């Protein structure tokens, strides 16, 4: 019996574990370390219409139990992602979730329409929450009306289900979640990074060239759990939860809070084998909790 499989719109997951967008590139590097087919899914790096060079360096800084990044959506652009990266990924038996980004609605629509036709792309992740670009990104994710419209526009063209990735940098995440649900989203992924900043104590200047960056890692887990908990109470579409997962217990917590699957970001930098390690540890954890199938954990905190 497979005790770990999860069925979500567009996604038949062997297990609920996947690397988070931006923390795994397009898989090539990690493929040198382990067989990518063990993963539930892969959320590939944000893709935009054109090639993006991203922000100046330094782009990362360490903080207490966390890190800041301001990569700035660097990616080779839609064409190359489809022709090179996604094609290369076809050798693995793993559904891909394509992270879609842009500046204008048209950009999102173009990327979504084209990338959703790639045979191994089984779902889109609409990135309306990137804090590290001046235009687009997070601006779409902080206003419910705008978020809903964008979701609807992308849904209209996408050949696969659409998950919308929410920003935690909002007063009321539930209202954004409800709006994207109304806009036709098939699921939600959350959370993206919190906007943060680190200064160089000697000079007083920001460490990251961009000034601010996105905070990720264990430091943000309590915020992520809270938001997943609240959103799952108010929407009926599934949630892919993330934010600070570093060990198997964190996965249990996200599922308990109401996520149906989880993504692991920063922890891949700390321990490149973290995804397969957690996948291996899950069955024993289920035994420990006296649970047959992992889906029984979903939303347990509400019951």
């Amino acid at each position, binding site marked *: 019996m497979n005790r770990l499989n999860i069925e979500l719109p567009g996604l038949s997951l062997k297990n609920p574990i996947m690397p988070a967008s931006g923390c795994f590139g397009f898989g090539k590097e990690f493929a040198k370390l382990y067989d990518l087919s063990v993963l539930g899914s892969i959320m590939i790096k944000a893709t935009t219409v054109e090639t993006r060079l991203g922000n100046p*360096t330094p782009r990362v800084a360490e903080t207490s*139990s966390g890190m800041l990044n301001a990569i700035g959506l660097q990616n*080779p652009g839609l064409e190359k992602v489809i022709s090179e990266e996604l094609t290369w990924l076809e050798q693995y038996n793993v559904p891909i979730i394509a992270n879609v980004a842009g500046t204008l609605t048209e950009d999102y629509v173009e990327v979504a329409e084209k990338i959703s036709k790639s045979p191994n792309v089984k779902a889109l992740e609409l990135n309306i929450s990137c804090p590290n670009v001046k235009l687009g990104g997070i601006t779409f994710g902080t206003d419910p009306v705008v978020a809903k419209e964008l979701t609807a526009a992308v849904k209209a063209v996408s050949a696969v289900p659409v998950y919308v990735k929410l920003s935690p940098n909002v007063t009321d995440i539930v209202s954004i979640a409800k709006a994207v649900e109304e806009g036709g989203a098939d699921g939600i992924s959350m959370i993206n990074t919190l906007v943060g900043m680190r200064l160089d104590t000697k000079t007083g200047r920001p460490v990251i060239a961009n000034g601010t960056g996105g905070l990720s890692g264990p430091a943000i887990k309590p915020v992520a759990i809270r938001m997943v908990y609240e959103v799952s109470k108010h929407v009926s579409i599934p949630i892919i939860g993330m934010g600070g997962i570093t060990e198997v217990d964190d996965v249990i917590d996200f599922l308990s809070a109401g996520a149906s699957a989880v993504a692991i970001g920063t922890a891949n930098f700390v321990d490149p084998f973290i995804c397969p390690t957690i996948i291996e540890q899950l069955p024993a954890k289920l035994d420990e909790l006296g649970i047959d199938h992992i889906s029984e954990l979903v939303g347990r905190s509400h019951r």
Partner: protein
Amino acid sequence: MRQEQMTVIKQKALATNIFEMTLAGELVSLMGTPGQFVHIRVSGGFEPLLRRPISISSINKDKGEFTIIYRAEGKGTSILSTKTPGDVVDVLGPLGNGFPVNIEGEKVFLIGGGIGVPPLYELSKQLREVGVEPIHILGFQSSDVMFYEEEFNALGETYIATVDGTAGEKGFVTHIIDQLPKEISHYYACGPMPMLKAVSSKLAGIEGFLSFEERMGCGIGACFACVCKTNNQVDGRDYVKVCSDGPVFKAGVVEL
């Protein structure tokens, strides 16, 4: 590339806050060109969270050991400096592409600044093995933080510059370069960005190899943290990743 819990064989203070650490494990069998680096997790928890990139400074394949030389400065390297023989350290490596050793040439400059000096040691050894004569030009802040003068001396001509004049020439490595005949086929440099800039403009016209530093996330090419702009397209790209395309690039490739 592999991840391994390696065993500390030796830890020694070479100079003020400068440590030499020898580690043993199977990962050593994968090490090749000098100038590659390892990505070290100094603690099992989240303090600090990220790994630290440190150059391989010498390799002993027979013994299955390698050595790093590092400055204990911030959180991570300070913790690293407290390890003692028998402790294990989580190492990911070897990473990146190092300095090419199979060159056509007789004499070369090896130019290092501060904690950019360590990888030049293995480089110098390997160059000598293939019959190239290394001339070492090493810059330090002061004699307090100088290391490996004798080791380099044993491998070839060695010139030292210190900013405060407490050892060797007072000033920068470029002052020494100015004084030396440029009868070299190639040069190799590792050190802070201003040094790389100065050196490559001084030695313009000679083929050179520069090793770069950038803040890193993954260390393996997946996160785009360590990107540098290139002067011309490389493999259809306007950038390179220091961790996986580098850290060593031909002079002229990366925008300085």
